[in-house]
C-alpha cells in the first residue's frame, strides 16, 4: 500500500499534477495582473491551460541539423528538474514531502536545471537566434546564480542547517526580511532573472532574437519548457516566502504570502525596460553579489561572536 500512496503523492497530490495546476494558475495571475497594470483586459482564467493543451497536441518540428535525442530529452529533463524541486519545498503550506540534510543545495541546483536545459536546447540547433539566445541565457545564469545562492544561504547560516524544513522551523515565524533585507531583495530579483522576466528578459528579447534559445521549439517541447517555468515560478515564490517571510504553514498563509510576492514581481516587471545582457551582468556582479556577500559575511561573523 505504501508504494501506491507514494505514487499518488508523486503523481497527483501534492506533487505532480497539483504542482502543474498551481503553476499554471500563478502564471495566469501574473499575466492578468500585468495586463491590468498596463490597462489591458488580460487573459481569462483558463488561458494558460488552453495554451499548454494546444501546444501539446500540435506537431513538434525537429530541425534536421540538431541532435534528435537531446532535442526531445531536454524539455523533459527541464520539467522533471522543476517538479523534483517542488518536492523539497513547503508547497501550498504542507510540510516538504521529502527532506534530508543538504536538500537546500539540491533544490537550488534542480531549479537551475531548467535554465541549463534551455541554454543547451538553444545551442543544440544551428538557428542563429537560438545560438545568440543560448549564449545570453547561460551568461545570465552565471550572473544571477551566485548572488541568488548566497541570498538563500543567509537564512541557512542563521539556522545553522542546510535542510529546508529545519531552516523554516528555526525562523519560527519571524520575518527574516527585517534582519536580512539585502538577502530578500537579491532573492526576489534573482527570481526575476531565473524566470527571464523583465528587466532580465534579454535572453528571449523578441524584438532582437525572436524567442531566444527556444526559437526552434514548437508543440510538446515548448509546452514542457513552459510548464517547467510555471512550476519554477511557484517553487521560487514558495522558497522566498518560506525563508524570508516567516514560513508558509497552512494554505491561506501560503496563498497570501506568495501572492504578495507575485504582486511585487509584477510591479517591477511593468515598471522597467529590458536591460541589455552586459548591463544585467554588470548589475549583478557590481551590486547584487557584493551586497549579498557583505551581508553574508556579517551574518557569519555575528554567528561566530554568538557561539
Amino acid at each position, binding site marked *: 500500500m505504501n508504494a501506491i500512496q507514494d505514487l499518488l503523492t508523486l503523481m497527483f497530490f501534492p506533487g505532480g499534477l497539483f504542482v502543474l495546476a498551481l503553476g499554471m494558475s500563478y502564471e495566469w495571475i501574473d499575466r492578468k495582473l500585468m495586463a491590468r497594470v*498596463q490597462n489591458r483586459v488580460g487573459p481569462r482564467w483558463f488561458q494558460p491551460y488552453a495554451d499548454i493543451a494546444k501546444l501539446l497536441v500540435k506537431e513538434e518540428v525537429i530541425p534536421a541539423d540538431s541532435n534528435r535525442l537531446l532535442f526531445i530529452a531536454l524539455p523533459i529533463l527541464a520539467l522533471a528538474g522543476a517538479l523534483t524541486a517542488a518536492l523539497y519545498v513547503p508547497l501550498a503550506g504542507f510540510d516538504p514531502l521529502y527532506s534530508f540534510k543538504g536538500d537546500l543545495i539540491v533544490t537550488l541546483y534542480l531549479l537551475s536545471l531548467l535554465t541549463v536545459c534551455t541554454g543547451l536546447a538553444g545551442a543544440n540547433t544551428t538557428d542563429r537566434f537560438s545560438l545568440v539566445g543560448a549564449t545570453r541565457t547561460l551568461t545570465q545564469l552565471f550572473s544571477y546564480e551566485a548572488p541568488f545562492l548566497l541570498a538563500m544561504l543567509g537564512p541557512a547560516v542563521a539556522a545553522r542547517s542546510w535542510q529546508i524544513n529545519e531552516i523554516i522551523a528555526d525562523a519560527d515565524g519571524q520575518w527574516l526580511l527585517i534582519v536580512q533585507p539585502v538577502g530578500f531583495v537579491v532573492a526576489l530579483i534573482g527570481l526575476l532573472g531565473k524566470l527571464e522576466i*523583465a528587466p532580465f528578459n534579454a535572453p528571449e528579447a*523578441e524584438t532582437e532574437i525572436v524567442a531566444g534559445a527556444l526559437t526552434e521549439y514548437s508543440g510538446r517541447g515548448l509546452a514542457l519548457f513552459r510548464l517547467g517555468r510555471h512550476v519554477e515560478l511557484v517553487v521560487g515564490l514558495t522558497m522566498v516566502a518560506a525563508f524570508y517571510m516567516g514560513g508558509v504553514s497552512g494554505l491561506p498563509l501560503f496563498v497570501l504570502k506568495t501572492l504578495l510576492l507575485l504582486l511585487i514581481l509584477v510591479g517591477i516587471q*511593468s515598471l522597467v525596460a*529590458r*536591460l*541589455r545582457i552586459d548591463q544585467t551582468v554588470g548589475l549583478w556582479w557590481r551590486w547584487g553579489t557584493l551586497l549579498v556577500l557583505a551581508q553574508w559575511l556579517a551574518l557569519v561573523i555575528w554567528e561566530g561572536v554568538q557561539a
Partner: protein
Amino acid sequence: MDTTVPQRFVVPIGPQHPALKEPGHFEFTVDGEQVTGASVRLGYAHRGIEKATEGRNWVQNLYLLERICGICSHVHATAYCLGVEKLAGVTPPPRAQAIRVLVAELERIHSHLLWLGVAAHEAGFDTLFMYSWRDRETVMDILEALTGNRVNYSANLLGGVKFDLTSELTDKIYKGLELLEERTYQYVDVVTSDATLLQRTRGVGVTTREQAEQLGLVGPTARASGVERDIRVEAPYAAYPDFPVKVVTATAGDLEARFVVRLQELFEAYRLIRAVLEKLPPGELQARMPRKIKPAETVSRVEAPRGELFYFIKSNGTDQPERIKVRTPTLCNLASVCVLAVGSQLADVPMILAGVDPCFSCNDRMVTVYSGDTDHTQWTWKQLRQYGIDYYRR
C-alpha cells in the same frame, strides 16, 4: 572552402521578424554581441504605385497615392494636391488650406504616439507601449469623427477639402487635445527620467550634426541631431505661412534626443491645431479644377511626420499624369541605420532601427540603371508586373 577566412556570424533581421512591422531585410554581422557590419536590402513591399499612376486620371490618383502610407496618408494626398494645383494654376480657398494643416497636425500626433509605442516596445518597455497606444486612440477618434476614417482619411480633394468643421467637432478636438497634452507631459517625464529606459537610450546610436548632414537625414531624426530642417518653415505650404511653426531641435543626437524631439513636436502640434481652430478663415471649401492639365512639371515638398516628403509631377496635356515620382523620408534616413549599427551592441540595433521611424512599403521603388547609351525604353504595366514575378521567383 578556405578555412583561413574567419567565418562570419550573421544575424538576419527580416524579411519576417518580430521587430519589424513591415518586410525589410537587414543583415548584421556580429562578433559576440558586438555588431561589426550591416547591410540592408529593400524592395519586399514594392507595389508599383508610381507606374500605376500613369494609367489613371488626376482624381483617381489622389486615392491611389493616399494609400502609399497607412500612417501618413494625408501628407501624401496633400503633397500631390498641392503639386497638381500648382500645375493647373488653381489656388484652393484659405479655409481648405487651414483644414489641410489641421488634419496634417492631427496625423502627426497619431504618428508620433504610434512611434513612441513601437520604440518603447523595442526597448522592452511594454507598459509605455500600451499606455501610449491607448492615448493614441483619442486622436484616432478625432480623425474618425472629422473624416469618417481612422486611416486613409481622404480629406483632400483636388482644389480643396471634402468636409467642414462644425462646432461639435471643434469641441471634441479641444477636449481631446486637453487629455493628450496632459498625457504628453507625463511621457516627456518618463523618457527623460526612467532609469532603465535611459540605460537603453542615452548615448545610444549617437548621430553627430556632421553625420546627420552628410547622410542627408530628414525630419525628427535630423532635428534630434541639431539640424534645423523642416519644410513647414523652410518652404511653408498650404496654410503654414499663416500659422508659423517653431522648429524643435535637440543637440545630443542619441535615441533619447529623438524621443524628446518627437514628444516636444506633439506640443507644437497641439498649439498649431488650437491656432487653426481659433482663426479658421471663412469661405469656400473647394476651387474648381480643370479636367486636363497642359504639359508642365513641378516639384512639391511637404513635411511628413517622418521628414521631408518629395513629389515630382509631370503632366502631358491629358487627364492623366506623364510621370509621378515620390521620395519618402524613410529612404533618406535608412542609410543612417547601417552606419550607426556598426560598433554598437546587437541589443541596441532594433532600437536604432526604430529610432528613424522606418516605413518600408512607402519607400520601396524599382530602379533600373542604364549604362552608357543603351536604349531608354519605357516599361509597360504588364512588363513591370512580369519583372516583379520573375524577380521573386529567382
